[in-house]
Structure formats: C-alpha cells, structure tokens
C-alpha cells in the first residue's frame, strides 16, 4: 500500500488522533524468530490472538492465498471455548467439548502457530515483540479479545482490582477464571450467589451473563442448594432473548433466581460483602463480578486507542485502525457496531481474510456484513436463539441491525442446534 506515517497523519487530519506510535519499550536486542516463508518474497500477515477471530483468519487467509505467510501468535497453549462454557460450568457438557488444538489446522493449512505472548509492537519498523523473539509483518491483525475495566465499580486501587480478579473472577475470558468459577459454583453451600451484568452493549456476549445466571440457578435447584442467584442488571430488561429468559426465571428456576433490573452499581464493598446500587444494597455470599470491558492491553500499548476511550478507532466499514492502516483490529478487540460474539468474530474473519488478501494484492472488494447467530441455554436441554446481520449506511458511516430473527420458545430442538452450532464452528477453525 506504501502509505507513510506522514501521509497517514495527513489523511486523518492533524491533531485528530493523539497517541504515541508504539512505545519506547522494545526489547532492542530481541532475536528475529526464524519462520520460513513459502517463498522469499511472500508477504507476511501476523495475527495476534488465536481465539475465534484469529484462528478463523489464519486458516482462511491461507486457504485464499497459500503464498501469503501467516503467523498466528497465541499466548495460550490450547484453545478453550467461552461459548457453551456456561453449560460446562454446570456439568451439562464435558471439558473436551470446549478445548481444541491449533496444531492440526496450522499444519493442514500451512500457517505458523507460535505459542507466545506479544508484549510490544514497533509500528514504524513493523515488528511484533514476543517472549520468543521478534517477528516482522507486512500486515498485522490484532484479534486479541477483551480485557476487564474495573475502574467504574471497583476503582483503581491495585489491591481491590487484585481481589476482584482473583477472588471474584469474571470468567468471560477462557481458562483459569472459568475453572475457578466452576469450583465456586460447585462449592457453594447456600445464600446469595451474585452475578453482575456490565452496563451498555459493548461487553463480551450480551446474553452471556443471563444464560450463566439461569444455568447456575438450574444447578442450585437440581442439587437443592439452599440459595439463589441474584442477577444485578443495569439494563431494564435483558437486551436480547428477554422473553426466553423470563420464561425460565418464572417457570424453570423460580425461587432460585432474583432479577434486579435497572440496578446501577455504585460500589463493590469486598470487606462487607455487599454491592451498593441505586435500588438498594445487595449482600453476597459469593460473587461473579463481570465489569465493563475494554480492548486487550496490547491494543492500548500499540497506541491505537484514543485517550479516554476503551476501544481502538477504526476505519469502517473495514477493520484498519485509524492510526495505522497496516494494522487491523477484529473480533472482540474492536468496538461495536457488532455484538461481541464468537459467531460474529468467526463470520467476520471469513470476510476479513478476503479483505486482507485483496489488500495485499492492491484490490478492492465490496462490503459484506458479518452475522450473529447466538443460542442460550435456559434449562437442561432447552435453548433459545437470535439471528441477525447488519446493514451499513456509507453516508452516515453507521450500522444497524438487519434481518433480525429469533426463537424465544425454549425447546430441545434449539438445544440440539446450539451444540451443533458450536461443533460446526470448532470444525471450521480446527479441522
């Protein structure tokens, strides 16, 4: 593309963006990681993050153009799915359902899988720095998912943030947090098990906390735990699938769940084990604290987020960052307009793979929106779903939900489809 930094600043308008190009913390002596290319002149796309977005992208860029050298860097040794994890928390699917290996698709489609942590990015020289060495890129995709923003409810005192992260993990990132939350649910002997819903719509998986609350209540009921789930929600109703969730709360898990809508959290008092809200204080015996979300730390470190924002500024309808058109942000690392879901991240990555290959070839392509199909369990073997896509208005540079369909009647058929939905996506990424 050959756009220099100076051109870029001109393009976005002087002063429009105030951030640093990377940061001065590069490990200057890092060795370059030796990753053979298909041929000497092969362009290289580095993807950071082997979640739903990055895993799909790596495979489909290679499928579309095997001559492109693709490097997928992921800090975790294996993939663990967040979708369907709410069913695993209450023993309705085994762990094997959720975990997958990157090695088969990497060898089958010919991309490099590097199990490493990216700790810095040199945008000028186009290197990413990992704990294993540095890697040069022609294009970089940050598919790094979310981070939690505790500042709103917990404050910024590192002691409080540490308590929140270790004692009351949100478990909206895979791995450690999920395993701990599962232990807590299974160890719970009675009282109030509080689950929070973040405000707004830019948190990961809009129906996720509602599904979790419902399935945990189902588990308490099944095991006759003398306690209940209290769901603290700043919204006036679940933003999606409300009818299906209310049916579950009024019929299937009645007495095991208390729903507190319109509840704005003012303070989380870990010492007294209570949450202060505008509708009264809520005492908790255990807590699953899911705070507001923001983009992953490396996106901030790369200087792609304006001061005061939580998400990188992007050039819609594509995914290039305003700051650097050689860097794209996909999946949950980007902000709205798309809901932060695995299905969205996967379907978007199919389109972005095509876009990246076209970008390398200097070609344009017509815009296509991603799709969001999302199931939620509301009882054992009962689920509901919503399916939608998005419409882009180039004049207003805005997106709107489009072609929204849903089935709010909990059924076994939907449950079967839910599990097959997940298996299909795992097949798409890992086989």
């Amino acid at each position, binding site marked *: 593309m050959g756009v220099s930094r100076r051109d870029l600043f001109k393009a976005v308008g002087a002063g429009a963006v105030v951030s640093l190009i990377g940061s001065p913390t590069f490990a200057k002596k890092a060795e370059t990681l030796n990753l053979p290319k298909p041929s000497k002149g092969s362009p290289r796309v580095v993807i950071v993050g082997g979640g739903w977005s990055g895993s799909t992208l790596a495979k489909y860029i290679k499928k579309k153009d095997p001559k492109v050298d693709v490097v997928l860097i992921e800090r975790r040794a294996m993939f663990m799915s967040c979708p369907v994890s709410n069913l695993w928390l209450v023993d309705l699917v085994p762990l094997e359902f959720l975990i997958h290996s990157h090695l088969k698709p990497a060898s089958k489609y010919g991309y490099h899988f590097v199990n490493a942590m990216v700790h810095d990015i040199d945008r000028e020289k186009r290197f990413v720095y990992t704990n294993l060495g540095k890697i040069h890129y022609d294009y970089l995709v940050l598919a790094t998912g979310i981070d939690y923003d505790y500042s709103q409810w917990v404050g910024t005192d590192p002691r409080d943030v540490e308590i929140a992260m270790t004692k009351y993990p949100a478990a909206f990132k895979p791995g450690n947090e999920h395993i701990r939350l599962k232990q807590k649910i299974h160890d719970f002997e009675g009282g109030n098990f509080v689950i929070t819903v973040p405000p707004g719509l830019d948190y990961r998986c809009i129906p996720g906390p509602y599904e979790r609350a419902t399935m945990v209540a189902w588990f308490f009921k099944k095991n006759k735990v003398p306690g209940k789930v209290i769901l603290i929600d700043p919204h006036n109703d679940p933003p999606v699938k409300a009818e299906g969730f209310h049916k579950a709360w009024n019929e299937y898990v009645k007495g095991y769940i208390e729903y507190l809508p319109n509840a704005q959290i003012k303070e989380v008092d870990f010492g007294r084990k209570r949450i202060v809200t505008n509708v009264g204080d809520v005492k908790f015996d255990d807590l699953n604290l899911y705070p507001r979300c923001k983009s992953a730390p490396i996106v901030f470190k790369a200087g792609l987020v304006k001061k005061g924002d939580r998400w990188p500024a992007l050039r819609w309808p594509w995914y290039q960052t305003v700051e650097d058109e050689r860097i794209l942000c996909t999946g949950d690392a980007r902000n709205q307009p798309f809901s932060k879901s695995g*299905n969205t991240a996967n*379907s978007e990555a199919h389109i972005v793979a095509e876009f990246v290959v076209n970008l390398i070839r200097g070609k344009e392509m017509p815009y296509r929106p991603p*799709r969001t*199909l999302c199931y939620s369990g509301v009882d054992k073997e009962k689920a509901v779903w919503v*399916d939608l896509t998005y419409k882009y208005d180039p004049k207003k540079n805005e997106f709107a939900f489009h072609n929204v*369909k849903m*089935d709010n009647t909990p059924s*076994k*058929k*939907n449950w*079967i*489809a839910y599990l*097959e*939905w997940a*298996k*299909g*996506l795992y*097949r*798409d990424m890992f*086989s």
Partner: protein
Amino acid sequence: MDRRRFLKVCTAVAFAPFMLGRSFGAESFKPYKKALLLREDGKPLRPEDIDPSKEYIFFYPYRSTPCLLIDLGKKVGPVEVKLKNGTSYLWRGGVGPKGSVVAFSAICTHQLSFPKKEYSLINYYPEGKVSKLVGRDKVIQCCAHMSAFDPERGGKVIEGPAPSPLTAIVLSYEDGKFYALGTSGEEVFEDFFDAYRSELRKVYGSTRIAKELVDSCVVLEMEKYTEEVVRC
C-alpha cells in the same frame, strides 16, 4: 439435454478422468458407481414409493455420505447454478415420470452438519411445512447456522452463511427404477472425511469402510432414520 445425450456425455467423461469434477460446457458431472435405489424391503424404489410430503435419506456415493431424496411434485430444472469459485454449471433438474425427483448431498456446505441417528439439523421442508427462517416451504434448511437451500433450483443458497450450493446427486430413471450416477457441483466429501474421522470410525469400524463406494442404496424416511428432526 435428453437422457441419451446426457448418458453419452457421462460416458465420455468416464474416459476422460482428467476432466472429472470440472465444469465442461454447461454440465458438471463427476461419476461414481452407478447405484440402484432400493426400498427398505430390498426391492427397487418406484416413483409411487416417494411421498412428496416426506423427506428421504440414502447414502451415496460413499456408504457414510448421506443424501436427501425429494419428490418436489412438479417438473424442475434445468437451472444454471453458480459455484463458490465463480463458475457455474447447468443442474439437470428432476427425474422420474414427472421430472420431479431430486437428490442432494445432506452434508451442509457451511460447516458440514449432516443427519445422524440422534438428530438431523439439515432437512427438507415439504409443502405446508413453512421454514420460519425464510418464510416458505419446499426448502432444504440447516438449523446449525441457518442456511437455506433451494431444491427446485439446484440446491442454491437462499439465505444464511453457506458459501456454496448443496452438492447435487445426479439421478437417472430407467425402466421404472431410480439410479444414482454421480455428483454435480462442488463436493465437500474430503472435508467431511477429515472432520469426522473419529466419529466415522466409531460407526463404520474404519475410515476405509466409511469410504467404500456403494452400488445400491436403501432409501429411508428421514423420520425413521433419525430420532429428532430439527426444523427451525
């Protein structure tokens, strides 16, 4: 194209293996073993055995690859079908006395969902069974991620994330009997065998057996084959 010419083309293709699976002229055809379609009692399937208000399953061209058999009740095709790679081919349409019997591979071209003994998410919606997703009947729909295909138009994608039409199964109707001859369009069999290796081993004992080509196929009602027909 009449049957005689079609068969001529097939024969020509059989002797030109380098062309297999490619579009040639307007037709695309990949021959497999010619397989007689049978009823459950082992007798040849006749037109009157196929109820237009039902969907049927048989396994072709491999013993583990499921297909849907449908009587659309009226003559359909031929139709030009566009493929993912930008090319298109001429789908022959229905066979049988009315030209209404069609067959498609029941492996979804999106993420390979297929009918299993426990459930089938990919199904035909006969007349009167309206798909909520597309608001019409006479569609094949996969409820895993909501792809809908048009059996009257060569399995074209009507809606949803499927990137390409269903693989068409080429049938012939000879002397009152139905035969499967091969496929048209893009196939997903290799991806299917790779993705379901361990599942197929459990069912068939080995991948080799799962990949055996068949020379006859028993046609079953889907409702009898699977425990749960999932429609959405």
